[in-house]
């Protein structure tokens, strides 16, 4: 192939690897969509009724499952998690946002890992296999840490890695969207998490949706000020990426000012007066929690059985990671 074309295609691959997931997030989810899937809203279905401790244990079980078993178990589990978004408030909308985020994290994760995988690493994961080279990068790409040859196996291996991250993101979102701040506070206190850490989590949970809201305002203000004026519509749309980048500093500054108020408000209401807190509502375990503990037990059982049957993460001969 023409060396110039080689260069151009290689660089397009480099940029599109980061750009495509970012564009999925920006255009298909949007800042308001991100706000939607990071904020709690009261509702009355299954996940909302669970004790937060149960959900927290579920999160840990998910981590245990995906970190000890073969990738496709994580993939199956991701799909189950994804469909459970349909049970949430505005389920279809949240399911679609979560799906885009899922796809974006798979694409981003795969592309951010695959070109860096060395031949030796791949040999351990896929012993006795001939590798199919799908692209050869210019030699100077090794300076950026790229392996010279991109193989089909590297892509497959990277996809498997991504399937380990995706369920974590999904279960984290499920937790945030179905647990109120007071429940998180009470639950963390119950499991003896130090109060400063609890407070940080609390401020984070409360602030994240606000970040997207402020970014959205800042971005729109840039368009009102003429960003993209006189340019074709698709260029105007693409400029949102630049606008988001420019909006980060004023958003963070604004949030810091608000965080100061929040800190004062909490501190003048006795926050950290004692290492413990009492609780207005006792976090009770209902029958639903016990049913869910069965599911958690099943998850752990799957992890154990998968390992016994040779589908554990450490079994390289299974042809996976």
């Amino acid at each position: 192939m023409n060396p110039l074309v080689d260069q151009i295609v290689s660089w397009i691959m480099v940029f599109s690897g980061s750009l495509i997931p970012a564009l999925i997030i920006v255009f298909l989810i949007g800042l308001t969509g991100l706000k939607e899937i990071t904020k709690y809203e009261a509702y009355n279905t299954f996940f909302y009724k669970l004790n937060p401790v149960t959900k927290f244990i579920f999160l840990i079980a998910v981590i245990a499952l995906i970190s000890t078993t073969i990738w496709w178990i994580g993939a199956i589990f991701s799909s189950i998690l994804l469909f459970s978004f349909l049970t949430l408030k505005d389920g279809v909308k949240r399911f679609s946002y979560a799906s885009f985020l899922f796809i974006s994290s798979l694409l981003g994760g795969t592309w951010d890992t695959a070109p860096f995988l060395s031949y030796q690493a791949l040999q351990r994961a896929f012993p006795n296999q001939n590798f199919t080279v799908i692209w050869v990068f210019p030699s100077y790409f090794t300076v950026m840490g790229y392996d010279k040859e991109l193989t089909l196996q590297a892509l497959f291996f990277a996809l498997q890695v991504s399937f380990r991250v995706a369920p974590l993101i999904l279960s984290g979102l499920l937790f945030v969207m179905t647990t109120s701040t007071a429940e998180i506070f009470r639950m963390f206190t119950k499991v003896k998490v130090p109060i400063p850490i609890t407070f940080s989590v609390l401020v984070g949970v409360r602030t994240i949706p606000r970040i997207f809201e402020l970014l959205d305002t800042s971005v729109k203000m840039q368009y009102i000020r003429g960003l993209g004026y006189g340019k074709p519509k698709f260029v105007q749309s693409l400029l949102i990426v630049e606008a988001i980048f420019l909006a980060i500093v004023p958003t963070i500054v604004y949030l810091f000012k608000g965080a100061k108020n929040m800190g004062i408000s909490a501190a003048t209401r006795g926050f950290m007066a004692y290492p413990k807190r009492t609780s207005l509502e006792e976090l009770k375990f209902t029958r639903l929690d016990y049913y869910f503990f069965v599911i958690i037990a099943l998850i752990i059982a799957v992890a154990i059985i998968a390992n016994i049957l040779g589908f554990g993460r450490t079994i390289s001969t299974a042809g996976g990671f």
Partner: protein
Amino acid sequence: MMFVEIENLKVTYLGKDKPSLVVDRLNIEEGEAVLITGKSGGGKTTLVSVINGVIPHLIKAEVEGKVKVFDLDVFSSNLSKISRYIGTLLQDPDTQALNYYVIDEVAFGLENYMVPRDEMIKRIEESMKITGIYDLKNREINTLSGGELQRTVLASVLAMRPKALILDEPTSNIDPQGTKEILELIKKIREEGISLIIVEHKIERVLEFVDRILVIDGGKIILDIKKDEIVDYADVLHSLGLEVPDYMIFLKKSGLKVIDYEFLKKNYHPSPPERKDGKGEALYAKLKVKTKGGNYIVDTEISLREGTITALMGRNGSGKTTLLKGIMGLLDKKQVIVEEEKVKVFNIDLSKENLIVRGAYIAYLPQFFDVMFVKRKVEDEIAFSMKNRKIYSKEKLEEVLSAFSLTEVRKEDPLLLSMGQRRRVALASVLVGGAKVILLDEPTSGQDWYHREMLGKELQELREKGYTILVVTHDSRFVDKFSDYLYIMDKGKIVLKGKPEEVFPKAEKYGIEPTMDWVIRNESSC
């Protein structure tokens, strides 16, 4: 017992070479209610932050001298101990609430202080009843109005049964209805015998609830008077840029020392502010916006006359901000349904145009406009808009900097400027594209009178240059002094419109009250 005893206090913020607050002596007795007022940046918040222990325990500063509250040494006691005695309510209700449900917010302080559950339930019920939010206990915080949210946080503070309360500008970010609710609540709190410090710009509104007025300026207490002496000091307060009603200044000039309404009726005949009629129609918009559930948020028409300032008032949630956003094309169509959208500026139809095009005809400033500053120098900020619109030249930039009095701060970071300067940078940045119609969303919120007056004068200057302005505000005094027209919005519709003189008398049922100045002026002219 004394509520506050201060001697030889000096507070110097880290990085500053001179103290931001110096108080030689200040005593406030238990059960006393004190109004602390003064221009923004004068040291009011620093003083109350020392009294409630936020300085030096939370905000680090060098402190000298002695500060005691209820015999407790503030500097050597920890903040949680001080907070048992003094409850604090801050200005912005949105940033104070940490919880999702009202009841959880009210319980927050009690849980922190390890109050047993039975006692907690008793206290929550009690404080919710005092603050009138008992019926809201299971409501989600994000569905509350500003006034309801402030009352929720106040209930949380009262549930801790403090001996004193510090209310730091508790009404500056909420609508007139919310303000009324909070002021009624203050009256109740006074009846409970709780000591009180209110930091507030609206002197006249809180006067009946306090015993004493402290004025802080330049980091010092420059006036400490009894509330009955206010008329006698009305001219001094006015010269300090504080919000003193005009009729009080008149009384002072007439040699009176107390408020005498009979005297005012006979002798006080001020002429109303000059109001412009305007020329043709600068902006026409018709909007129908509803929620996904089918409830109309906005269903109204609006028309602005060229070269006028129109104020838009109404309760929180009446649709004012949605109307402005709808005109600008800022509504998120994933969240709401825009059923009808007609926007014309000087007869140019913008209904189908996007933000970029609308921005060339209509300038818009949101309430929290700081998030629009994307450059780290004032001149770059304005140049950003000019370059976007392809009208940048050094000469034009100089012209704009000079027109908005920004030449001296051109190299400064916009985010580090004073409120007045920041607003001028923001206005310059949105107007430089050539827009002749300006929409401002609550620019008076949280501002002292000095800054509101400055804003009013700036807007009048822009009006003289031919701009047409629509201001969403809760500030009746600002409306009376600076606007040509007043529109009232309720449940998504503009229900009243006309000159303030025509609209104010009919506006009470929509939660809008005119100022006493307006009332006295109109009574005396009858």
